[in-house]
């Protein structure tokens, strides 16, 4: 008993050591951004980037009071709308592909998966023309379409993977009880998919939050700008205010971080609720 206690303490210590090493490797960027965002532009160029040299909050004040706030709201609107549609469309489609038997299902699955291979930049000009002809140019709605389209294949790919692991028994029981496909989906599949849905929500949010190419060409007026475009306003042709750019970048991470923590809780809840324990 004593030895196993000693052993488990050692292994716990080892785990913490590993975690600590990785903590430094991944957590450092935040510190890097923080230490340099607190500097003035002149100071940035004259002090080592790896040091804390001052604690000015001027950059934060300036960034927050600039138009930045609106870019934030725009980003939140576009990304939530897109992620919302993605979750519904992808889980519905995955259900049809995995659970319903029909002839073309393998073909459709392959088609969606093939969508993952399309490089985003190659669709810029066709999508631009399409957006113009739909009258969606320079609107936030114009961004939602391509964002949803580009996130769907990966989301369907991940969701179908998870769905295949869910045992069929529960559905069969419900089916015998007279439930239709719609009820099966909303009452059984969708709740069971929660961890996977949280995963694709996080995944797509992080990608869309940082998306740039479409936002650049599909919107124009400053009041329709999203965050990634706004970040570039601190850079110009002849000089760069790096501390201010870093301030803006750091501030842009915060909402994502909050959402991540929130979703993280959902994942854990989903698993402790025992739904998947089967």
């Amino acid at each position, binding site marked *: 008993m004593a030895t196993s206690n000693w052993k488990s303490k050692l292994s716990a210590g080892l785990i913490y050591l590993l975690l600590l090493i990785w*903590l430094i490797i991944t957590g450092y960027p935040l510190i890097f951004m923080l230490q340099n965002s607190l500097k003035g532009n002149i100071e940035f160029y004259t002090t080592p980037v790896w040091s804390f040299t001052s604690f000015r909050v001027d950059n934060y004040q300036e960034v927050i009071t600039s138009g930045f706030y609106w870019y934030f709201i725009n980003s939140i609107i576009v990304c939530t709308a897109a992620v919302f549609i993605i979750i519904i469309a992808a889980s519905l489609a995955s259900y*049809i592909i995995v659970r319903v038997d029909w002839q073309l299902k393998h073909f459709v699955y392959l088609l969606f*998966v093939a969508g993952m291979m399309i490089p985003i930049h*190659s669709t810029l000009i066709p999508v631009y023309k399409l957006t113009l002809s739909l009258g969606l140019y320079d609107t936030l709605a114009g961004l939602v379409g391509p964002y949803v389209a580009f996130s769907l294949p990966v989301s369907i790919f991940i969701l179908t993977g998870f769905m295949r692991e869910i045992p069929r028994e529960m559905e069969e029981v419900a089916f015998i009880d007279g439930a239709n496909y719609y009820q099966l989906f909303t009452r059984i599949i969708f709740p069971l998919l929660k961890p996977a849905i949280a995963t694709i929500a996080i995944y797509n949010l992080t990608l869309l939050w940082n998306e740039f190419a479409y936002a650049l060409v599909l919107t124009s007026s400053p009041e329709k700008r999203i965050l990634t475009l706004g970040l570039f306003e601190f850079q110009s042709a002849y000089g760069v205010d790096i501390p201010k750019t870093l301030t803006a970048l750091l501030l842009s991470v915060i909402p994502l971080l909050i959402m991540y923590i929130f979703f*993280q809780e959902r994942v854990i809840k989903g698993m402790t609720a025992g739904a998947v324990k089967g």
Partner: protein
Amino acid sequence: MLFLLPAAFFFLLYLVVPIPVSGYYSLFKWDGIGTLNFIQLDNWKRLLSDDVFWLAVSNNFKLVIISIIGQIPIALILAVLLTRKLSGVNFFKTVFFIPMLISSVAVAFLWRYMYDPTFGLINAVLEGIGLESWALSWLGDTGVVFYSIAIAVCWRFIPLYMIIFMAAISGISEQLYEAARIDGASPFQSFWKITLPLLLPTMINAVVLVIVGSLKYFGMVYALSGGGPNHASEVMATYMYTKSFTELRMGYGSTISLSLFLIAFVVSVFFLALTKRSIRD
């Protein structure tokens, strides 16, 4: 069938339509503004003998291999560690995900300063421990630049696979581990006997994601090196972008993008077919 409608709508409109359009453009010499000059298959012939394109293709495949070796195992280990019931795990989970949250502009910026040959942290550390000769110009040396970028890419994407694995592990029944413990299996044994086999489908999916992601990767390569110096770190997507939007050769750019699509498609279908068979056996 109605369930497919929303997905199919967006998918067809924004993703499927551009493909034949690219195919059409690839038959022309076109600067993106002026008239389209029909040149038959000249763009395709040129592509086949374009050394830079093939260099980019081989870099993409190198990136696939480095990413599979570098990302999947680390992500798996982290996921296993983080799904154990230890205090403080939530804190680690949050911090570990940070590289995915920060936009690639910022991540590239950070790594640019890590790699700076004069002021950079990496060289400072190497010189500090007496390994001056290892202090390279990480982004300036054509022999090294690609690997420097690949490391930064791995660093950025490990958290993604980490959460995918975590979600999958959380789906494994606790009772299985309980039973194994009663049978006297060590945590290490139960990892090999229970976690790993049950994670196999998820791992295959993760590998597919890595393959696809690496083949069409653009962001950090563009931000850190722009594909240079002297095309040393060129990948298909950066080459396509340079051709289309810097040199304004939209026709040739479309040719590259279509071949990127075809290559990625063939490779991942091949991989999926391969793994399906091996699972059945």
